């Protein structure tokens, strides 16, 4: 190849350009570029040419002799592109990336690709950025220079490119989602709440593709944050066993709400696939109507007998914290599970290690009844300012605990 080459190229500079043979005849127009999935930046390995409306041919990149001013190639006998389709390590850039929506895992949002940006290394090109800005769009339309002139003349302003590094690009179509290891690495940049927002922005097909690519724990955390209607649709698209695994990891109150929305048969099957203890808790939660205190509560909290020493309580809390929804309080119950008192984490930290829980508990305990309306629960939260409230039945047996998060969902269902 010649030496007066640019350092960077855009896809739009190749798209629809004619490729000539040395003898002078036209081989076809560039329809697509093919890249090999190399880390971190894919390498362009060839071009797909269109000779007329239907016929496509593959031209390996090594055969291209010259890029400027004309695309020249030495080979006349071209390959059939069909053989490429079976290879997993290949991305068709137009078919899978250009004009498509992608997830920008750095900015945590879904964006549309206007152009692709290549870096030249010797005589090869590597895909380094996707262009999602207005400048890229104008370049595609063919108005880039005109826009530059107008902006320059009016405001002395040059519109910058808006690039996203390929490292942070998660594709939504084609082969990328089948490559689980790749997807997970990229998606793991994201907070589950951001992932949930992204999933909500996608079409149903893309949603389930992304969701399937997540590991069980991330899937559970993400699912908790998703709109209930979409939650339901997602859980219905995955196999029952996987649904059981994911919902085991979810907070019991969220899992119970979701189960209640599912058709009974399916909910039952999912419960059957779970660990027995969790399934039992969930069944209990399911009995209570959604808009009562019972429907808001979770069973993932710590409860201990009154004589437990602070030392032991701390150790238990430390050991179980990863699986608890409520870590701010420990609930004191007797052998009959009757609620005796509450110890906050602050009480625990300021107490001496040999004291027992009943010694350090607060003088009174505020609780709500199982069938209390959620409006009253919200009021109790506002009035007492606790981060969680215990729920008891008529005989004061502790049944569950409502976290502040559940109340927030009642108060502002659309926020976040």
């Amino acid at each position, binding site marked *: 190849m010649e030496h007066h080459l640019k350092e960077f190229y855009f896809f739009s500079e190749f798209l629809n350009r004619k490729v000539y043979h040395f003898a002078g005849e036209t081989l076809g127009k560039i329809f697509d570029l093919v890249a090999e999935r190399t880390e971190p930046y894919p390498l362009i390995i060839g071009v797909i040419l269109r000779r007329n409306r239907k016929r496509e041919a593959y031209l390996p990149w090594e055969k291209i002799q010259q890029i400027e001013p004309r695309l020249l190639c030495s080979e006349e006998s071209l390959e059939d592109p069909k053989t490429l389709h079976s290879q997993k390590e290949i991305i068709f850039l137009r078919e899978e990336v250009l*004009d*498509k929506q992608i997830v920008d895992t750095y900015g945590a949002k879904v964006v549309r690709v206007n152009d692709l940006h290549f870096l030249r290394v010797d005589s090869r090109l590597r895909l380094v950025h996707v262009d*999602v800005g207005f400048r890229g769009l104008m370049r595609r*339309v*063919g108005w880039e220079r005109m826009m530059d002139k107008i902006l320059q003349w009016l405001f002395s302003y040059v519109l910058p490119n808006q690039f996203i590094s390929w490292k942070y690009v998660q594709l939504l179509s084609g082969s990328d989602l089948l490559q689980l290891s790749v997807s997970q690495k990229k998606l793991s940049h994201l907070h589950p709440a951001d992932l949930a927002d992204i999933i909500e922005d996608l079409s149903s097909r*893309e949603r389930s593709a992304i969701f399937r690519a997540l590991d069980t724990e991330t899937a559970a955390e993400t699912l908790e944050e998703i709109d209930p209607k979409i939650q339901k649709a997602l859980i219905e698209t995955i196999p029952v066993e996987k649904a059981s695994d994911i919902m085991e990891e979810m907070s019991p109150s969220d899992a119970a709400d979701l189960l209640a929305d599912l058709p009974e048969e399916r909910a039952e099957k999912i419960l059957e696939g779970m660990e027995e203890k969790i399934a039992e808790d969930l069944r209990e939660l399911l009995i209570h109507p959604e808009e009562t205190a019972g429907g808001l509560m979770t069973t993932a909290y710590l409860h201990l007998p009154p004589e437990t020493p602070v030392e032991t309580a701390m150790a238990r809390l430390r050991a179980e914290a990863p699986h608890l929804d409520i870590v701010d309080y420990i609930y004191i119950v007797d052998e009959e599970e009757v609620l005796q008192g509450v110890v906050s984490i602050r009480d625990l930290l300021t107490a001496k290690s040999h004291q027992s829980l009943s010694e350090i508990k607060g003088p009174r305990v505020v609780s709500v009844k199982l069938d209390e309306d959620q409006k009253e629960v919200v009021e109790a939260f506002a009035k007492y300012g606790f981060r969680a409230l215990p729920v008891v039945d008529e005989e004061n047996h502790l049944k569950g605990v409502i976290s502040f998060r559940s109340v927030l969902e009642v108060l502002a269902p659309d926020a976040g």
Partner: protein
Amino acid sequence: MTDYKKWISASKQSLWRTVGLFFLLMGPGIITSNVDNDAGGITTYSLAGAEFGLKLVWSLIPIMIALIVIQEMCARMGVVTGKGLSDLIREKFGAKVTFYLMIGMFLTNMGNAISNFAGVAAGMEIFGVEKFLSVPLSALLVWWMVVKGTYKTVEKAFLVACVFYLSYIITGILVKPDWAHVFEQLLHPQLSFQSSEITMLIGLVGTTIAPWMQFYLQASIVEKGIKIEEFKYARFDVITGSVVVHIVAFFIILVCAETLFKHGIHIETAKDAALSLKPLAGKYCTYLFAFGLVNASLFAASILPLSTTYLICEGLGWEVGIDKKFVEAPQFYGIYSLMIFLGAGVILYPEIPLIPIMYFSQVINGMVLPFVLIFMLLLINDKKLMMNYTNGPIFNFIAWATALLMIGFTLIFLFLMI
């Protein structure tokens, strides 16, 4: 809402189940068809009856078939792909084509937005309110309602007010037309190639099968998250909606033909069009008509600019959503506000003729329709995209024929203009 759903899916009796499911999924088609009868629609149908009597009433039958086919295609694409129409166009045809199409849609729909504010102006003039007061106020109202998110609650009020169309059906029966003659006209196509008739025909198609409504319908179907197993209900909804539009259109034309056309009254202002309701409402007919016109205009004026903004931003990849802040989605709020305030601003120009604006915006709709239709056809026959849900030969034939006929009529129209 969820309780309802549970009750319905638990219900053993299949009839209740079916009826219940239908009402749950009802909406997109019915709403779309009611928005279809906007200011431009009422005006075009009234003009068709007043200028040509029953001569063009036959066209409603082929238009209805085409509308059913086209809307069914949109609904099917929405259900199968889960994406909006402009999304699909962008992904299949690329940035350049999409960009020009979006400019085209913006200009066409700007015409529709202007037409709806013309409807407000014309209706409120009958109530004695100057357009310099009514139009800016309604523009602010619509803008505020949508941006503040209170629109969804108001939508029901708009829908209920659509019973106004019943007044045309009642009037149609009251005037005791010669039904044998009406049906003969309905079943015997006739067309002389005069420019006024060709224009009216393009307008009738354009107002009934407005291009923007296909984007709107598909978006609503996607938003509802209808699954492919539930598609038959959505299909029924779409067909019901299309039939309802045509019953209303038929009666508007019939009433105007029996009242205005017979007495040789030409529609120059909204007051003239209102006279058609005289057999029903007597001297109050103008108020009745004005009420209906203003409701229809406001209804469409709140949906159309928003839907246009959505489709443009989706196609060009800009952030959308009224839950976003201005700095997060500047293009979205920019285009939306421009459509409303420019649309209203044009109407404030003194002495601007309101009826022709409402009419010709619909003619432009008709001319733009075939382009959108061709994109739809190429998309829906893409096996990779639609899998087993591509068009059958009959649907393809009807849709292609509609597109080609509209191109043909447009060419004849342009030829006759020269």
